[in-house]
Every structure is written in C-alpha cells, then in structure tokens.
C-alpha cells in the first residue's frame, strides 16, 4: 500500500508494521506527530499495543526498558532536549542489552531555542551503546524502523534511527507501507531467551564487581562487531523481500573520483543532484552517503575512500573544541591506510540550527575542497554571517 506520509508518520507506520507491543512516549516538537500518529494507529486497533503516556522522556525510555525486559517489543521517539533528558536511560537500555527501537528527530540543542534540524542531539549520544542509523527519505525512515528491530533483536542492542526535523519529519511524500503480514515474514515475533518471568526467575541489574565488569563491556563490543554483519544481512534480506536496500554506507558516482563529499541525512539527497551536475561538467568528484554511525563501518569506509585525493565531510553538527563529528569519525577510520592511499580529510560545518543546505552550498564545498590547502581544511564554516 502506498500512501502520502510525512517522515514522522513513516516512523509510526514502521512501528505499526513491526508490531511494536509497547509504546512509551512523551511529545516534543518536531517529534510530536510520530506519537500522535501512533496513538491514532493504536486507538483504531491497527496495532495491538499498550500506549503508555509518561511525564518525561526519562520515563519514556524507562517505560521501554521495563517493557522490553518483560519480553515486549517496544518503540519510542524523541528529539533534542528530550533525548538529552533520556541520556541516563539510554546507557541503561544498551548496557542491559535491551533491543529497544527509537526514532530521534534531529533538532538543534538549546539555548538558543531552536526547533530546527541539526545532528548534535543524536551525535552526543554516540557513546551510549546504541546503534545509530541516519535516514535520507521517508521511505528509508519506515524501512529502517523495520530493519532496526531485525538487527537489534539479533545482537541485543538498542537502535536509534535518525531523521531531519522538517526536511523529513513534516514533509509529505509517497511511501510504501509493507503491512504487518508481509513484515512479519521478515521480522518474526520478539522472543528473548531471558526476560522477567515469574516461572523462570533470573536476577536483573545486580551489582557487578570489578572482576567481571570488563567482560560485560567486552561482550557489548563483540555484539557491536556482530551488528555490522547483522545490519548488512538485514539490509540484503530486506531488499530481497521488499525490493529496497540502503547499505551501511552508499557510494554514489564514485567511479574514478579523486574528490569525495561525505554526507548524512537529507543533505545526501540534495547532494546527489549537485554531484550529477558536477560530473557532467567534468569534475572528478563523487558522493559517499553515511548511514550507520554505530557500529562505524570502518572497513567499508576505508575501502571506498582508499586512493582518493581529498574527502570533504559535511557536518551538520559541531563538537565544539574539536570540529565536525563525522569528520573525526571518517578521518579516524582512514588512519591506518598506507600514506600514498590515504586521502586528506576536510571538515565543513554546514546547516546548524536548521539553516538550509542548498545545492549552491554543496557545490561551493565541492569546488572549495579541490583547491583549499590542507592546513586550512580542519574546520571550514560555510555561509557564516560577518
């Protein structure tokens, strides 16, 4: 069934197709319509789920953690300050190895108050042990919710899928909804091996002394490593069944390209047409779409970028005191390439607080990276007012 949906509705319909059993959520602009749509879906009986209204995002995630520990598939969504308030519970969900799935609508952090998109909210949660997927279209949002459950429940780690405020969250476009029946062929019911069960009691959340805590963390690292393969497999299987696949990263028109733009979120979509134009004009430049932040697909990124001259990373975020976060991640992945294979990595800061990243902006960066000396390429702010 194809429908005209916003990105937020697409996230809700993804949870509906995946048969989430508990939705525990608190509204925040620009995420609110995810929760409204899900409330409507549950009220109409299209999804057999408990809808828990809570008093804060911290409680929203706590609700998911409790329900997931009891063996239910859970879903929630948030944005910006809401995600920040969840921070403690994000660690808890991951370290308790609970495969919660959450949509985060990227919104710039306050102050100054903003409801518009940038990625600092989700990127600041990079180290909580969640998988993070960044989406480019409404269809990708819906599909990533479904794939997210598949991967999360294999590796027992939570998944956050991320969509841009307004550019996806409030934008209508055509989306294919596979429905519960077809989705259940891809995604079987959630059956954890251990859960809160009075007939089969286990201890949860006990104190872990110094001599075994490290092993718990190591197991998470192993699970994250396995998540790379699980995510690739989940995407391949999804493509086989539904005809759509995304990869963990996506090289676009990179054949023989000396220069590469690396993008995430909706900037990728706009950048595709810019790259097409530049290729037609004879520029040796292509695009690398970054979809998965955690686990970071180090080998894939290294393989695609080895031998290129320069990479321009477009960061809709800023780690103040260091630079763009994607820039750091990508540069880190390339460090062990032999020197003659290792491209220079330039960091471009764009579109913070929802400032539009227009085709002209992207073209400017694509031309700039071809001539800028590397010593001036650490942190280039694009379109700053004087």
């Amino acid at each position, binding site marked *: 069934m194809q429908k005209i949906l916003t990105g937020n509705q697409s996230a809700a319909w993804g949870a509906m197709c995946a048969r989430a059993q508990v939705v525990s959520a608190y509204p925040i602009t620009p995420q609110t319509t995810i929760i409204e749509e899900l409330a409507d879906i549950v009220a109409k009986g299209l999804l057999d789920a408990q809808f828990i209204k809570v008093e804060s995002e911290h409680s929203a995630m706590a609700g998911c953690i409790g329900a997931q520990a009891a063996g239910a598939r859970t879903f929630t969504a948030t944005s910006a300050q809401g995600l920040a308030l969840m921070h403690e519970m994000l660690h808890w969900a991951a370290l308790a190895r609970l495969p919660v799935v959450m949509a985060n609508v990227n919104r710039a952090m306050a102050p100054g108050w903003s409801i518009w998109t940038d990625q600092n909210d989700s990127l600041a949660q990079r180290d909580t042990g969640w998988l993070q997927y960044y989406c480019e279209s409404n269809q990708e949002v819906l599909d990533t919710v479904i794939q997210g459950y598949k991967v999360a429940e294999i590796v027992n780690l939570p998944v956050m899928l991320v969509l*841009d405020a307004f550019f*996806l969250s409030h934008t209508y476009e055509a989306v294919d909804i596979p429905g519960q029946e077809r989705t259940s062929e891809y995604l079987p019911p959630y059956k954890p091996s251990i859960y809160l069960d009075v007939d089969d009691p286990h201890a949860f959340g006990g104190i872990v002394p110094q001599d075994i805590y490290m092993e718990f963390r190591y197991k998470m690292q192993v699970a994250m490593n396995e998540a790379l393969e699980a995510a690739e497999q989940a995407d391949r299987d999804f493509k086989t069944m539904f005809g759509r696949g995304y990869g963990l990263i996506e090289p676009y028109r990179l054949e023989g390209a000396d220069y590469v733009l690396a993008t995430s979120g909706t*900037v990728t979509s706009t950048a595709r*047409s810019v790259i097409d134009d530049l290729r037609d004009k004879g520029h040796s430049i292509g695009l690398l779409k970054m979809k998965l932040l955690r686990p970071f697909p180090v080998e894939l990124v290294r393989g695609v970028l080895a031998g290129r001259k320069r990479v321009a990373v477009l960061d809709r975020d800023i780690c103040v005191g260091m630079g763009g976060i994607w820039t750091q991640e990508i540069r880190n992945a390339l460090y062990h390439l032999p020197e003659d294979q290792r491209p220079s990595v330039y960091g471009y800061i764009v579109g913070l607080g929802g400032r539009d990243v227009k085709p002209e902006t992207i073209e400017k960066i694509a031309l700039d990276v071809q001539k800028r000396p590397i010593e001036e390429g650490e942190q280039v702010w694009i379109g700053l007012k004087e």
Partner: protein
Amino acid sequence: MLELRFHSRGGQGGVIAGKLLAVAVFKEDRYVQSFPTFGVERRAAPVMAFVRIDDKPIRIRTQIYNPDHIIILDQSLFNMLDVTQGLKKGGTILINTEKKPADFDFGPDYKVVTVDASAIAVKHGLGSVTQPIVNTSILGAVAKVLKIVKIESVVAAIEEDVPAKQEANAAAAREAYEVAQP
C-alpha cells in the same frame, strides 16, 4: 520540476491543501513533495505550504525560494506580506477573493486569476462565513487554472484523505473548478 507556494492563515487549511494536492498528483503516478512552513503553527498567523511536482524522483530537500506559481487563500495577507517574493517571471497568482483580476496590480511579469473560494466553501457548509475552510475549493481552482492535476484526482484525494464532509468538500472543489476562469 514545478514548485508551488500556498499562503494562508493557520486554521484555513493551507497545509492540508498542500497535502491533498500531493495525494492528487501521486494518484497520477507523478512524484511529489509537500511541506509546511518550518515553524511553530498558530491559528490565524500567516503560514505557507509548499509543493514540488516532477516526472522523476525529487531529490532536492531544501525550502522553496522561487516558486513557479503562488496560491493565496486569504487576501488580508496582502497587507502584511510581500506574497510575490521570489515568484518566477510568468508565474500565476491565484487568489481567493470576490474581486476581479483587474483589481490587482502585480506588474506585467505575472498573471492574476481570482476565484471566490470563500463563498463556494460557505455555500457547501465548510466552515463559517467569518471562517470558511477554503482549501478544497481552492484546489478545484488550482486544477483548472494551473492545469497541473486533473479535477478527478483532486476529488479522489478529498474522498480518500479528508476526515469529514467528503461530499461537501468534493462538491466545493468541483464548483470552483467550474467557475474559475484561467
């Protein structure tokens, strides 16, 4: 690619007009993207909605700065906004008003078309005299004047997507389609 901008006030249905147009265009197997002003919606405040239509997938994901045509649901907005800002030369300005096109002067670069969508909406019981819901009427005029979508597709979108008074909304769209003079 064709780009449109709707001007209205919060509560008049301008954003839903953009969505319904997207549904109608999608029914004709074309690609479409529709979004509201990126902001905090308030009743009676000026709001905008935007629509992109193309025969191939739409990859650009930015705001719309230079629309091909604009549609104005509330003529009182002329007093507070430069509604033609960024409008491409040769563009059409479709206005919900009881006035005639000759009553407006936007210069030689634009074509003005008027339709009394408020009267049509009230006649079909959509909203009230002071607060008519004009989005479905104006879409009938859009189908006629801009020729970007068939009236049958608009009616089908209304029947499928409008939560109440589908018949009255569809009739209003048809009537506006009949009376609008491109």
